[in-house]
Each structure stands twice: as structure tokens, then as C-alpha cells.
């Protein structure tokens, strides 16, 4: 707030300099927080509908494990949690200015994330072959819609991570400026968190 | 006036691509370039459909809510489910079920099949069309009818005809026996349309007779289908020219 007449360039600085006090973080981070608010409402609509339908028609759901492959998905859940850990590692690495570490951990995150999507596709193929399709009652409807949109979010996350990784290999990040890594990391952790909720209510209950 | 001109100009922009005036969005798949029915040569199957025993009573329809239609009847109208006139059964679709050479295609009849809505009933109640043949739907009543087709293999439609004299044309793309038609404004109105991949079909009228002509020589299985009384089949051998008889008999117990 010290500048009397900040220049235009300072608008885009980290954090914005010369402005009235805002959120105290740089724009991209604030924007991602706000955007995640929107994402929460999206998943609230899906999960809320799921709960309403399930409470009204508990008989439409099969007991856990009868249709869905819980052990496989449990492993997949574990994978996704691991990818959050590698993401944290990547972020920690670049905070220390360790570009090599960043690249290593980012690649690990991309691979695990893609693996998660792959396992989900594998699971879908098996379920469909077993006759469990989206039109299979409320169970199929909600299962495919919720896990499908989560899978879509993970896929988007993997694409963003690949982009960040590519930029890491270009040497665009440093200890001083690594906003892209942090922002995508926020998104990635969010997607991970949503999955833990979905795994619990869709597979385990 | 200027306002209207502007409004219509904008409307035409909105509607652009919707087809010419009068042309509408009729999805008639043109085939065969208006070739005459296959009656040019070949043999034919001629016969009649009879009904023995006492025909079941047709339910009466309370049309009091629709004065326009009620006025067309002297007494309380009945739902013409089973129409028997001196032992002859009407509204039976007779068609070649099998025996035609596989893979052969036939020209589509250029004349449209017409179904009329009059007195809040469909005329005829049973109808057959060929795939691609134009089905012309007419409204002769000065009331709203909607025409809802609920096929399983073809694409359905649900359209309205709010005024007398309206005609709408539709066609079907896939063989399907049968496509039910209904009017939801007058819940009693039903008709059935058989969609066939060949032109060898006929529908019986009040005299119960039918003729399927233009058939190449060969042995065919012929099916007679009635919406309430079910189906009957028979095998016939059609000569290169001339006619072979085929008579079907339904009874009250047929289901």
C-alpha cells in the first residue's frame, strides 16, 4: 500500500502491489479458491441429489461390493491420495528452488493421476460388460454420473499437470515464482478430496 | 405495417433453414423417383377375411365433451375395435411375411397412404405403409387432435392439428410392425400402422376383401393381422401371372 502511484505492471505482480489491501494473495491463487467454491456447489448438486434419491429409494441400491469392485477402487483411492503427496513434494521442491525435484515429483503425479483414470476406465468397461449400465436404475444413474464427472475433473487435472510439467522442463519455475505449480496443486488436492467423499458414499455405504 | 414487415423479416431470419414455405420439415425420404407400384407384372394374392361367431361388443365412447364430433353421430358412437359386416372382418392388415428374395429392394409407392381423423376416430383404423412411403395425416374435425406415434425402431413424433383441413406428412425409416398412433386429447382414439420393407400388403375394408398384386412368382408366407384378434398366417404359391386365393378366418375365440 506504500505506493502513491503504482504502475500498471505492478498489477500483475505477486501479490498485486500498490493496491488497496485485498485477500493478501496473488490473483491466481485467489481465483482458484473462488473457482473451487463453484466446484463445491457443482458436486453438492450431484451428491445432494444422490442422497435425496437414495434416502427415498434405499432398495434401489445393492449392498457394497456386490456390483462394484471395492478392493480395486480402494487401491485406486490410495493411488490418488499418493498423487496428492507427490504433488506436495513437487511444490515443496520448487519452494526450495529444486527444479529437478519439481520435475521428478510432477512426473510422478502425472503418472499416478493418469493411472487413476486408467483404472476407472478399466472398471467402467468391466461393469458395462457385466450389464451394469447408466440406465440400470437409480444405482447406475448416480454411480456413472458422479464418478464420471469426477473422472472428468481428474482428466482435466492431469492435462493441467502435464502442461505445468512441460513448463517445468522449460525452466519457467523458480523458488521466487512458482504460482502455476501451486494453483494446479490446489485444484489437484480438491479433486482428491472429492474422491474420498465419493468413494465413501458411493462404494462403501 | 412497417412493424409487421420488420417482425416478419426477423422471423424469417430466425426460421431460416427450416425449409420452404409449405415444404415444412417433412422428412420423406425420396426413393425410386415416383415409380409406380410393383403392379406392372407378376402374380397376385386375392382373398377375404371372415369372422365366424358373435363378434365381441365394441365399447361405447362418451363424446359429450366434444360437441363437434358428437354431432357427427346419430347415436352414441362405439370404438370400432372389431368391425364385422355380414361375416366379413375389416381393418386387417394382410402382408407378405417371408419368401421374398433377400436383399431385393422394391420401389416405394408414390401415392401417399392417407389416414383421416373424422368424428374423433381414425379412418382407417389399421393401415400399412412401406418404409419411405409418405404417410399423410388429415384432420377433418374442427377440433384439436394431436398425433402421437410411439414406435420402438423408428423415430417417434408428437404433433398437433388444431384446425380442420390440416394435413401433415411423415414417413418411417425402418420396418416395424406395428407403430401405434394415438390422440391424447381424445384418449379413445387409436390406430395402428404397419411399416413394411416391401410394397406387398393390403388392408381389408368393410367387405373383408384384399388383393396383393405385383408379386414375383414364388412361395410366400402371408400374414393377416388384426389389432384385437391377433395374427393368422398361410403359405401360398404365386404364379408368374394370375391370381392365387388366400382366405383367412378369425373366430371369437382367437386371441
Amino acid at each position, binding site marked *: 500500500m506504500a505506493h502513491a502511484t503504482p504502475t500498471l505492471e505492478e498489477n500483475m505482480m505477486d501479490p498485486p502491489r500498490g493496491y488497496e489491501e485485498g485477500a493478501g494473495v496473488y490473483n491466481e491463487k485467489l481465483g482458484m479458491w473462488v473457482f473451487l467454491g463453484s466446484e463445491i456447489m457443482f458436486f453438492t448438486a450431484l451428491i445432494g441429489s444422490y442422497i435425496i*434419491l437414495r434416502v427415498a429409494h434405499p432398495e*434401489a441400491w445393492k449392498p457394497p461390493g456386490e456390483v462394484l469392485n471395492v478392493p480395486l477402487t480402494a487401491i485406486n483411492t490410495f493411488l490418488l491420495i499418493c498423487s496428492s503427496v507427490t504433488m506436495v513434494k513437487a511444490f515443496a521442491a520448487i519452494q526450495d528452488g529444486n527444479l529437478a525435484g519439481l520435475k521428478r515429483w510432477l512426473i510422478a503425479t502425472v503418472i499416478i493421476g493418469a493411472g487413476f483414470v486408467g483404472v476407472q476406465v478399466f472398471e467402467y468397461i468391466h461393469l458395462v460388460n457385466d450389464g451394469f449400465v447408466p440406465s440400470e436404475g437409480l444405482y447406475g444413474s448416480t454411480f456413472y454420473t458422479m464418478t464420471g464427472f469426477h473422472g472428468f475433473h481428474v482428466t482435466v487435472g492431469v492435462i493441467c499437470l502435464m502442461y505445468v510439467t512441460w513448463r517445468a522442463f522449460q525452466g519457467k519455475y523458480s523458488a521466487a515464482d512458482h504460482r502455476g505449480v501451486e494453483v494446479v496443486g490446489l485444484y489437484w488436492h480438491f479433486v482428491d478430496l472429492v474422491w474420498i467423499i465419493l468413494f465413501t458414499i458411493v462404494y462403501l455405504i | 405495417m412497417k*412493424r409487421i414487415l420488420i417482425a416478419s423479416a426477423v422471423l424469417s431470419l430466425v426460421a431460416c433453414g427450416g425449409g420452404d414455405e409449405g415444404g415444412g420439415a417433412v422428412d420423406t425420404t425420396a426413393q425410386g423417383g415416383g415409380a409406380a407400384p410393383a403392379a406392372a407384372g407378376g402374380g397376385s394374392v386375392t382373398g377375404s377375411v371372415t369372422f365366424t361367431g358373435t363378434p365381441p361388443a365394441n365399447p361405447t365412447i362418451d363424446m359429450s365433451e366434444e360437441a363437434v364430433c358428437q354431432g357427427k353421430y346419430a347415436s352414441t358412437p362405439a370404438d370400432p375395435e372389431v368391425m364385422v359386416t355380414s361375416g366379413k372382418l375389416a381393418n386387417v392388415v394382410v402382408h407378405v411375411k417371408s419368401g421374398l428374395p433377400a436383399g431385393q429392394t422394391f420401389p416405394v409407392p408414390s401415392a401417399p397412404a392417407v389416414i383421416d381423423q373424422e368424428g374423433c376416430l381414425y379412418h382407417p383404423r389399421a393401415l400399412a405403409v412401406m418404409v419411405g412411403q409418405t404417410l399423410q395425416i388429415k384432420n377433418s374435425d374442427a377440433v384439436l387432435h394431436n398425433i402421437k406415434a410411439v414406435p420402438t425402431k423408428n423415430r417417434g413424433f408428437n404433433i398437433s392439428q388444431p384446425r380442420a383441413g390440416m394435413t401433415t406428412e411423415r414417413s418411417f425409416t425402418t420396418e416395424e410392425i406395428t407403430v401405434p398412433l394415438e390422440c391424447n386429447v381424445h384418449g379413445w382414439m387409436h390406430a395402428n400402422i404397419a411399416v413394411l420393407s416391401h410394397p406387398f400388403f393390403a388392408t381389408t375394408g368393410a367387405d373383408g376383401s384384399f388383393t396383393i398384386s405385383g408379386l414375383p412368382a414364388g412361395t410366400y408366407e402371408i400374414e393377416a393381422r388384426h389389432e384385437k384378434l391377433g395374427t393368422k398366417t398361410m403359405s401360398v404359391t404365386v404364379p408368374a401371372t394370375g391370381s392365387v386365393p388366400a382366405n383367412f378366418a378369425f373366430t371369437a375365440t382367437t386371441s
Partner: protein
Amino acid sequence: MPTIKSSVAGHASATGEAHTHEMSFLRKYIFSTDHKIIGIQFLIMSLVFLLAGGVLAMVIRWQLGFPGQAMPGGGVLPDTMAPDGIVLPEFYNALVTMHGTFMVFFAIMPLLVGVFGNYLIPLKIGAPDMAFPRINMASFWIAVPAGIMMIAGFVVEGGHAAAGWTSYAPLSERADLSGVSMGQILWCISLIILGLSSILGSFNYITTVINLRAPGMHWFRLPLSIWALFVTAILVLLAMPILSGAIIMLLFDQTIGTHFFGPAQGGQPLLWQHLFWFFGHPEVYILILPAMGFASDIIANGSRKPVFGYASMVFAILAIAVLGWGVWGHHMFMSGMNPTLGTSFMISTMLIAVPSAIKVFNWLGTIWLGSVRFHTPMLHAVAFVSMFIIGGLSGIFMASTPVDIYIHDTYFIVAHLHYVLFGGSLFAIFAAITYWYPKMFGRMMNPFWAKAHFVLTFVAYNFVFFPMHQLGLQGHMRRIFDPNEYEFLQHLQGLNTFISISAFVLFAAQFIFAINFIASWFVGEKAPDNPWDDNGLEWTVPSPPPHGNFATIPRVYRGPYEYSSPLVQEDFLPQNRELPPQPAGSAAHT
């Protein structure tokens, strides 16, 4: 010095010198990242949809005013819409549906949020641009295909979506019931895409307002238009994804056979209504809050007086935004929802009238003791207040559950919603367009024709919508193709014809505005920097403002409504004007 900017997905670009070198036409006007150009792009697109929605309304009014008669020029329509120029019932339902959809999602909402959110936020808070200029550009270019798809629905087989703009399931999800298949699917996909566009726009606005206010622009020095747009952006951000989620489920029901809203396998038709209105009621406030903000700015300017009770105006906006999440059930009193829930929704609905009333009284208080200048924007803003009063009061009838039993889904609600959305939002939009037009295009609109447009619109508007209250009180249902089918409605045909003729006049009057808008762009009088003697930061820069808006970021010393301040000779005091130190106890406020 690294001036790297990375956006959400990790993009980077050097934006620092973007304004210094020449840009191609394409970059400058088409794929522009300048918030002002994007605002104008939204303006043009949404005005086109406003016109299209108006055309649909005229066809509706033709059918109701002159049922069963051939519409002049209607012969150009295909037989699936209007054979011989006579509208078909299924086309009528599509008209009603698409009039609502166009107006709500493609006209009023982008006009308020897309246009003025974009144009005003950076200028009024003293920022050079949005926090994420390229996401801003994306939000416009995502909206374009959504609009094209929504129009394309008219020409697909089966016609356009015809289940009402609320698309109540199961009618909306079963082609055999409605006769519509592709049209409804396009409706769904278009709104999902538009939702994404709105979300991208709103998180941009929110970030910008939080992080990029000029030094000295405290929260309580923000103009009320910015407060309203900021709170609206939060509502959009949180409400649109609910709609997207619901529409995705509807789309899956139609296309891949899921069972969310169809009762055959346990789906719930009421679930759609709950989801739709959980979005839909905040949406109602999305459509009115910015209008309230513009009216506040313009009434203060026109009255040459500070806004009465600035703080309570801000709290009223916040109260509406919070309470707005708890009243959705009042759209569903007749839906078969538990009657006890109905009572609680009625009480919360009654309460939300309070902040709206506060705003009305404060506008009156602002004019009181003022020195009113009747420029066109002021006329529209005053019309907004007086029409909003009617729309607000008529809402109380429907909030009262027993009275709602009778007037629910009749023309009374049609009258009410048009008093709020046309009398309210659209008059405020006309106020805003005529107010900021000089800033946007650097030219003044012709004041005579602008006032002529106002007078004709105001009179014709009331002739159209006021009698609809009477229709509703006689039990005239909404969305009825031909009311003459019912004996108890036949005596209303004369009133319906009167409404239709008034509607044609109303529609025709809009061409005065359209011509004035377009012609002034080319031949209008050159606009000065500050034609209305306003205090806002946007009026301190040239008209139109250059790329980057401000040569240097301005410093703000006071609130936006210091009109007729005793501290200065003129009757206005710009927010960034530095005054010599005042003796203690001066009148300077905030």
C-alpha cells in the same frame, strides 16, 4: 523485473507492455482481452438476443390477441411451426420456452453481468483490466457457441425445447411426451456451456474486486453498482454450477437413459424442481441486484445528492443475497411439497421483502431534498424504482400461500415477473446503457430520441403488463395457447387483444432505441470525459478510455456519492480528487 502472469491453468504471458504496441484488428476488437471490448461484445450479443426474445414475444402476443388467425408475415414460417401463418400449439410452447430462455439467460443476465460487470468493474475500482484478461475473453467466446446452439434448436427436427424455461421433468426429458428431442438436448448443452462461461466471468470479477481496488478504494467506498455486481458474481459462481449439475442429470435422462427425474424407476420429478429453483431463486436476484446497483448510482447522480443510507444499501444487498438461498420453495407451493415446508418458505419469502423495501425507501430518500436532473438515464432509473415497487408488492400476493393457491401459474405471476424483469431489470439496463454509452463509444446518444423511447416504452410497457394482473385474477392460466377453450376465460379476449396491440407498440418503440444506439455510434455528438458530472473513476479518463484505462493507478480519497458537497464549488467531487487538508470536524464523510 519479471512481469510474468500465470493463470489458473498455468499459462504465462508478458502483459506489461501489451498496450504500448499496435495490435491487429483481430486482437484489438475480436479476440480482445480488454475488458471494455469484451463488455461491448457482450452488449452486442445480448442486445441481439433481446431483440430475438422480443420477436418471440410478439408471435406469442399475436396468437393470444388474435387466436387462430394468420399472422402477418407468418407465411415464411415452415409448416412445423405455423402452417398458413397460423401458430401451432407445439410451436407456441416452444415460443414460450425460448422467450423465457433467451431473455433470462441470453439477454438480461449477460446485459447486467456480462456487459456492465466487464465494463464497469475495472474502471470503477481503478484497475487497468480484469485479474485474468484471457479467461475473460474465453468467457465471451464460450458464450457465443452456446448462443448459436440455442438458436439452432429452432430448425432441428421436432422443433425447439417446449417444456417451459423451467423445463420441468418429466415433460422435458421424454420426447414422446413433448414431441421434442433434439431441441431439448440442444437447450441442455447450450445452458451447460453458458454456465461455464458465467462461472469463468464471475470468478474473474470476484478476484478483481477483492485484489485490484485502487489505493484508498475501501470496501465502503465502492460504488453500489460494484457492490451489486460483486455480490451478484458470488451468486452466479455458487448458483450456476447447481443448474449445470441439474441439467447434466436431465441431459443424461434424455440421452443415456438414466432415471434421475423420471418416476418409472424411482426418480423424482420434484428433485428437478428443487435443484432448478435452488439455482433459480438466486438467479432471480442475479437478475435484479445489478439493476439496483445501477439505479443507485444513477439516482444519486440525477438527484445531485449522496445515496441515502449507503451502508444500509450495502447490507440490504448482502441480506438479499443470503436470504435468497432460503426461499426457493416459494416457486413450489403447488408442487406437492410438504405443506409445512410451504409455511416456512412463505415466512422466509415475506422476510426477503424487507431488504427490498429498504432499498426503495432509500432511493426515495436520495431524491428527497435533491436537485433532480431529468437526463434519460435518470428517467429510466426512476421508472425502475416505480416499477420495482409494483413488482415487489405484487410478489406479496404470491408469497401468501393461500392466495397463491388461486393465482399460482396464472397471468398474475406473468405480470409480477415482468414487472421485476422488464419494469425492473430492463429499465435499469436502459438507464445503464444510456448512462455509460458516452464512455463506451465516445459519443452521446441523441437525447430527444432517447427520451422519446423512454416515454413510449414506459407507457406501452404498463399497458402490456398491468392488465395481466387482471387476467390472472380472473384465473387465466399462463402458457395457454388459446384461452378461449375455457368458458370462464372467454370474456377476457378483449383484454388480451388490447395487451397484444400494446405489446406491438412496445416492440416498435424499441426500434427508436436501436436506431439511436447504432446511429449515435457513428454520428453522435462527441462525448466529453464526464458528461454527467459524476464522481466515479471511470469519468476521470477519456471517453472511450484507452487500453489499460488509467495512465497511473488513481488514488481514492472518498466515497462515490459526494454530490453537492460543501467542500467544493461544483456540485460533484470525484473520488480521486485530492483536496487540501480540512479543519477537524468537517462534513467529509467516509
